[in-house]
């Protein structure tokens, strides 16, 4: 049943429905409403979990790692600087193959300090071994939590995952969302069965060190697991669709891509604005389309190449910057790689950094730039300041 709710509260509801045994997080804007709501749920007895208020994000994810290793399903959430403070643990959790799910309310990184949205934080950890899902609206980001746990915990995956959504733009927006019932989620998401578990009845050493004779093979195995995570996300996304009517079997969503002359590629909330802009452009005879990336890690290169096949110009909207690279955008570099040999022109447009608003007219202007072959640039700079 649809109800109207703040994005953060919908995420908290989703986390609760997944029945985590331990929740640990450190407050950071714009993630705070999620963990405040979870703390309330524990205080009110709605959620039977250990809620640990910790000293830092470093401790928050370390606590989660310990609980997960002891066999519990765990949950955390963070943003921006918090994710950076966690970074060492982020890589460690993936290497230790603990299927922890963490919500990322995307926010820019300092300096300069900014509490506002872009996606630099999670995209900067693209190589950490966590799969990454991005939601376009409150419904999608809510559903992605159920999918993430189910995929992560599969024994052919055993990898942690980020569920990412744009800070403020989605985390602080009230909009209608369908929250499944506990019975429904219990039927969808089975209890967590750990693979490696700290247990006195069956001793195991976890997180050992590997000499050069072993290290590469562990990294190789983790990469294989990441590839399998793609299949798993697709399969459990399809199952989700069968149960709830919202299908997530695809890692991407194509919008009005038939006969498109210019295609946008983007992640997250900007996709809604792009869709509205595309409708306007189409009405004006400009044949534009969108390929939205929902699963960014593992990178669905084949699916993207298929979706973009035959499109002359591709404009990747980047809420990030890969400083010192030719394209300037992280995602564009990967899209371009996915399209190697096709002759398709791929351009990155750095937009919306640090909360700069993005409007339909901006999207239209970027389409025009792509048509002219101008790209790999910042869009929307206040040139009077430069």
């Amino acid at each position, binding site marked *: 049943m649809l109800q109207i709710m703040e994005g953060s509260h919908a995420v908290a509801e989703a986390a609760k429905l997944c029945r985590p045994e331990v929740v640990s997080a450190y407050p950071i804007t714009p993630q705070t409403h999620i963990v405040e709501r979870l703390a309330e749920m524990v205080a009110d007895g709605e959620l039977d979990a250990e809620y640990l208020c910790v000293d830092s994000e470093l401790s928050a994810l370390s606590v989660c790692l310990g609980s997960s290793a002891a066999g519990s399903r765990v949950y955390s959430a963070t943003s921006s600087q918090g994710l950076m403070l966690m970074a060492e643990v982020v890589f460690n959790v993936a*290497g*230790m*193959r*603990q299927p922890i799910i963490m919500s990322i309310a995307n926010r820019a990184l300092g300096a300069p300090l900014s509490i506002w949205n872009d996606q630099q934080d999670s995209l900067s950890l693209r190589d950490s071994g966590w799969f990454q899902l991005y939601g376009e609206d409150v419904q999608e980001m809510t559903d992605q939590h159920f999918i993430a746990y189910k995929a992560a915990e599969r024994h052919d995956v*055993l990898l942690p995952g980020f569920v990412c959504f744009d800070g403020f733009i989605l985390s602080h927006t009230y909009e209608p969302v369908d929250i499944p019932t506990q019975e429904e989620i219990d039927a969808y998401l089975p209890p967590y069965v750990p*693979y*490696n578990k700290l247990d006195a009845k*069956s*001793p*195991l*050493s*976890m*997180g*050992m*060190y*590997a000499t050069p004779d*072993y290290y590469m*093979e*562990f990294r190789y*195995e983790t990469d294989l*697991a990441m590839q399998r995570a793609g299949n798993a996300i697709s399969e459990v996304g399809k199952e989700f669709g069968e149960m709830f009517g919202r299908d997530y079997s695809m890692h991407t969503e194509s919008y009005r891509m038939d006969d498109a002359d210019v295609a946008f590629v983007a992640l997250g909330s900007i996709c809604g604005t792009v869709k509205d802009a595309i409708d306007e452009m189409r009405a004006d005879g400009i044949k534009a389309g969108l390929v939205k990336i929902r699963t960014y890690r593992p990178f669905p290169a084949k699916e993207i190449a298929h979706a973009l096949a035959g499109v002359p110009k591709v404009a990747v909207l980047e809420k990030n910057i890969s400083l010192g690279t030719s394209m300037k955008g992280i995602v564009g570099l990967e899209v371009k790689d996915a399209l190697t040999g096709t002759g398709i022109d791929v351009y990155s447009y750095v937009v919306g950094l640090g909360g700069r608003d993005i409007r339909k007219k901006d999207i239209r202007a970027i389409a025009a730039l792509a048509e002219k072959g101008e790209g790999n640039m910042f869009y929307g700079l206040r040139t009077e300041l430069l």
Partner: protein
Amino acid sequence: MALRIGAAAAPGRAPDNKTGSWRVFMPIVDMEKCTHCGTCTLACPETAVSDEDGEIRFDLDYCKGCGVCANECPAKAIKMILEEN
């Protein structure tokens, strides 16, 4: 041997590494002097000294020859001698 996910391992493989080869000096015990006080068995960092059936035994597969047992023996019953190859 296949890798275990997450660089995890069950106990049991450490003894594969025979640290006895590190040794230069080896312990010998004079059972006439030994009082079975237990100092050597407790002090050994290698778990390589045992007191079984009235005999002090050194597990030379693992004894690194550090000499803590000899140094600490209150009865001076243990000596370290240069080991012949």
